């Protein structure tokens, strides 16, 4: 068998075929002067350490304590999140959608994996999975149940399929009993899944 070396079950597994192929392509592009390896490192660092759901959590927490900001966020999310310093690719046109006691919002991209990078970072594997992309539009309640989220029938689900360059951020309801918390403490309560809509807070 040509692929017998694909054995990941031992302690010192050799690099996988795809890892070697990626390494080969990187070497080729560096040798051709098409990419700078230090730029690659800086890009990885950005997505591992500079962006992530804590950015979106800050947006949500501010929307809970600052009514003027909330109004701006709902009217022009692109400008409102840019004011907090969150700009860039996959955040060119932002829209914030608010959960209420009767409406629950849920975001998907059935065509690829569109996701608001500047406020949430890179999407989790499940968001990019065939199952999530296929089922969220036809069976949102079934998908939510797989996240442990069960909504009463009287709550309307609004699914947002990100088919253009608009990127959606769900503004969850502020949890009850948090009146005493400041903005930073509130931000710590906001989860990534809450801002995608697969969880309620």
């Amino acid at each position, binding site marked *: 068998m040509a692929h017998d070396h694909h054995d990941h079950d031992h302690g010192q597994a050799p690099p*996988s075929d*795809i*890892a070697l*192929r*990626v*390494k080969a*392509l*990187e070497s*080729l592009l560096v*040798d*051709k*002067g*098409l*990419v*700078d390896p*230090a730029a*690659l*490192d*800086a*890009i*990885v660092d*950005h*997505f591992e350490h500079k962006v992530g759901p804590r950015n979106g959590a800050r947006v949500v927490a501010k929307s809970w304590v600052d009514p003027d900001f909330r109004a701006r966020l709902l009217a022009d999310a692109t400008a409102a999140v840019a004011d907090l310093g969150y*700009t*860039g*690719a996959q*955040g*060119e*046109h932002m829209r914030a959608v608010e959960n209420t006691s009767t409406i629950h919002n849920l975001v998907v991209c*059935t*065509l*690829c994996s569109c996701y608001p990078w*500047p406020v949430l970072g*890179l999407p*989790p594997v*499940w968001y*990019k*999975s*065939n*199952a999530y992309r*296929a*089922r969220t*539009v*036809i069976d949102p*309640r079934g*998908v939510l149940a*797989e996240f442990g989220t069960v909504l009463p*029938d*009287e709550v*309307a*689900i*609004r*699914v*947002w*399929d990100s*088919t*253009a*360059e*608009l990127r959606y951020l769900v503004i969850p309801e502020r949890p009850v009993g948090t009146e005493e918390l400041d903005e930073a403490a509130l931000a710590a309560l906001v989860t990534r*899944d809450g801002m995608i809509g697969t969880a309620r807070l």
Partner: protein
Amino acid sequence: MGGMHGLGPVAPEADEPVFHEGWEKRVLALVIASPTRGNIDAGRHQRESIPGPAYLGMTYYERWFAALRAMLVKGGFVTEGELESGLARGPKATPRLSAEAVPASLARQGSYLRDGTSAFRTGDRVRARNLHPTGHTRLPRYARGRAGVVEACHGAHVFPDSHAHGGGEDPRPLYTVRFAARELWGPQAPARDSVCLDLWEPYLEPA
């Protein structure tokens, strides 16, 4: 693939890392730093061009890697021979993106908004046309032929069906259209549920 059955359950992972494998980091970074970057629609089309059976079996970054290789060849940046041998030929270029330029490049706020006049207004009833182009489109199959209501007008945006194929930006008005779940999926869908899609004017007709 919206609405397809048989693709299994969604499998959320607790405390998921940003990347699972080191090579995934490099693929993401290569795609962003590569001279092929700049036309998001062409990139999406390239990934969609992976044959269906293979596509469904690949992970996200495997698709990105396959599409990147294809676009590097298509763009004339590398040859098939270079990909095969791993040996660079020809004069050495200067990388388009330096490490110092990365933070500003990633924070740069682009826009897909262009000048244009919208035919529909918020509240208008529209129907997604029954279109089946063989190339790139952002009109999902599950919405074709279905009627909904214009929920928001976004001005004219770069039109992917043109832009993906070297036809220029060809800006067209973009709308958010809300479809009742029952309109899309039939009477078994909950009455209150809905799905919103962002659709360009050429996808729509008055309903």
